[in-house]
Structures are given as structure tokens and as C-alpha cells.
């Protein structure tokens, strides 16, 4: 099949009956003064100021997703926050688990301490942060290596943005993270564990 038009959609939309095209011409005639004055106004208020520069260094405000962004932008913020939390926990974790060198009499009271409800809640949050960070990281790797955004293609109407191509992956990863978090919730908070 030979593709003649790059944008067949709008062209097809414009095809109508003869009455419709007459109506279109009539509207054009009645409104032509608007087009005229709009064009006139634009010639006299021609913008001569230098182009406005937008900062590309948004700082911490950028983490809040300043601007029009997809959902993935907020996952980026969450990825960083969970990463910081995991790093903080890792440092603490290295000190706690290194105490095994001091023997059983130090290890057992320390582990009894970690069964405190507050510590259990913190550990659960760390598990949840890991589940999110790991599965979002898989998505990032796939997108980064070019596997998830789709191949570049001719912009044929209706257009498909790369965001729509990678969105199912994001949803699948978040659902999977949710499953692991719920599973861990059972292990953390159900009595007998």
C-alpha cells in the first residue's frame, strides 16, 4: 500500500458535503474582519525583547515536578527519595550487622531490640522503598537502553507518543512492586511471624 499523505486524518475530516463547505465559506466571510485586525495588531506589537530564558537548573523545586510532566516524573522524585532512604539505612545496617563480631551475647539483645513495633514499621518502609526502587529501576534501565520506548517511526496520524508506549511497562512494574509490598506486609505484621 502506498502512503501518499503524511497526515490523512485531518484531510479526511475536512471532506464534507457541499452545504458544509458553503457554510464554511460564509463563516469565513463574516469573520474576516477579525482575522484582519488580529494580523494588524500583531504587526504593531512585534516582540523585540530578547527571548525569555528558562532555567534548566531547577534545584530541589524540580523534584516537585515543576511544569507539565507525566506520572513518570513523580516516580523520578520517589526514586531519589527512596534511594536516599536506602542509603541511610545501608550505613546503619552495616554498623548493626558488624556487631556479630562481638558474639552471641551482643547479637541476641540487639536483634530483640529490632522486634520493637517502631523498628518493624521502619523496616517495612525500607522493604517497600526497596521494592519500588528495584522495580522502577528495571523500568529505567529498559527505557535507558532503548528497549521500552519503541523504535522511531514516521509521524502518521493518529500519533503515538513514546510516553504512551512506555506507560504499560510503568504500570506493570508498579503493580509488581505493590504485590511484593503486600506480601511483605503479611510477613511483617501478621502474628506468628
Amino acid at each position, binding site marked *: 500500500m502506498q502512503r501518499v499523505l503524511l497526515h490523512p486524518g485531518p484531510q479526511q475530516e475536512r471532506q464534507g458535503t457541499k452545504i458544509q463547505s458553503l457554510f464554511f465559506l460564509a463563516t469565513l466571510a463574516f469573520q474576516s474582519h477579525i482575522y484582519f485586525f488580529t494580523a494588524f495588531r500583531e504587526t504593531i506589537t512585534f516582540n523585540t525583547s530578547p527571548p525569555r530564558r528558562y532555567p534548566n*537548573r531547577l*534545584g*530541589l523545586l524540580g523534584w516537585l515536578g515543576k511544569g507539565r510532566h507525566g506520572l513518570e516524573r513523580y516516580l523520578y522524585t520517589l526514586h*531519589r527519595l527512596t*534511594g*536516599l532512604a*536506602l*542509603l541511610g539505612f*545501608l*550505613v546503619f545496617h*552495616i*554498623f548493626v*550487622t*558488624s556487631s*556479630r*563480631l562481638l558474639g*552471641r551475647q551482643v*547479637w*541476641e539483645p540487639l*536483634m530483640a531490640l*529490632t522486634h520493637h513495633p517502631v523498628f518493624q514499621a521502619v*523496616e517495612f518502609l525500607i*522493604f517497600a522503598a*526497596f521494592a519500588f526502587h*528495584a522495580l522502577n*529501576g*528495571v523500568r529505567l*534501565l529498559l527505557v*535507558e537502553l532503548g528497549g521500552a520506548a519503541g523504535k522511531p517511526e514516521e509521524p502518521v496520524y493518529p500519533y503515538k507518543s513514546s510516553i504512551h508506549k512506555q506507560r504499560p511497562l510503568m504500570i506493570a512494574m508498579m503493580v509488581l512492586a505493590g504485590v511484593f509490598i503486600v*506480601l*511483605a506486609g*503479611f*510477613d*511483617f505484621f*501478621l502474628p*506468628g*511471624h
Partner: protein
Amino acid sequence: MRESRYWGLHMTSAVALFVLLGLHLVIMHLDGTLALIDPAWSKPLAWDSVLTRARSAFFTASYVLMLAAALFHGFYGLRTMITELTGSAAVRRATSIAVWTAGLALFGLGAYAIVAMHLRVGA
């Protein structure tokens, strides 16, 4: 080392951590689920379980690898965030030095604990 090398290592360590840390967290925290398969997995934090893992060459090697990968991945991530938030070259340099110092010190402590425990129990 060039920045692109660091970035490549960041992604490589991410893949390693996905496997190793995933395994680690499943063993440590999904113990209730694992106990359905084998009751031996039910008390991962008990002293005897700690000794069993310390005796195993697989766990010892995976702990050292996991420690190195996690420290690199975490501290490189932190360095990226600080580098992005500040434009100053002096701050970047200080961050790199601080991150390397902290990472190597923590690796020294952790790796010493892992290997010393393995030698103590395995002998």
C-alpha cells in the same frame, strides 16, 4: 575515571543488586512465605542461622559483592544528586572526596566483619 565509566558501573551494580539484594530481602523478610517451603528458613535472624550463613562460602562471597555494589550504587547516586543541585566545582570535588572516603571506610568495616566471621566459624 571517566564519568561514563561511573555511570556504566552504576547500571551494572543496579543489575547485581536487583539479584543479590532481592534474594537478601526475600530471605530476611519474606521468612513467613519461605517457611511454607522449608521450615529451616523461618528464623533468619537467630544466632544459629547467622552462623550457618557465615560458614557458607556462597553467602560470604555474595555479602562482599553485595556490600561493594550497594555502597557504590548508593554513594554514586548521592553524588549525582549533590552534583545536580550545586553548580560549584569546589562543592563537586569535596562531594567526590567525601563520598569515596565514606564508601571505602564502610566497605572496610563491612568486609572485615563478613570475612572475619567466615574465618572464625569455618575454621
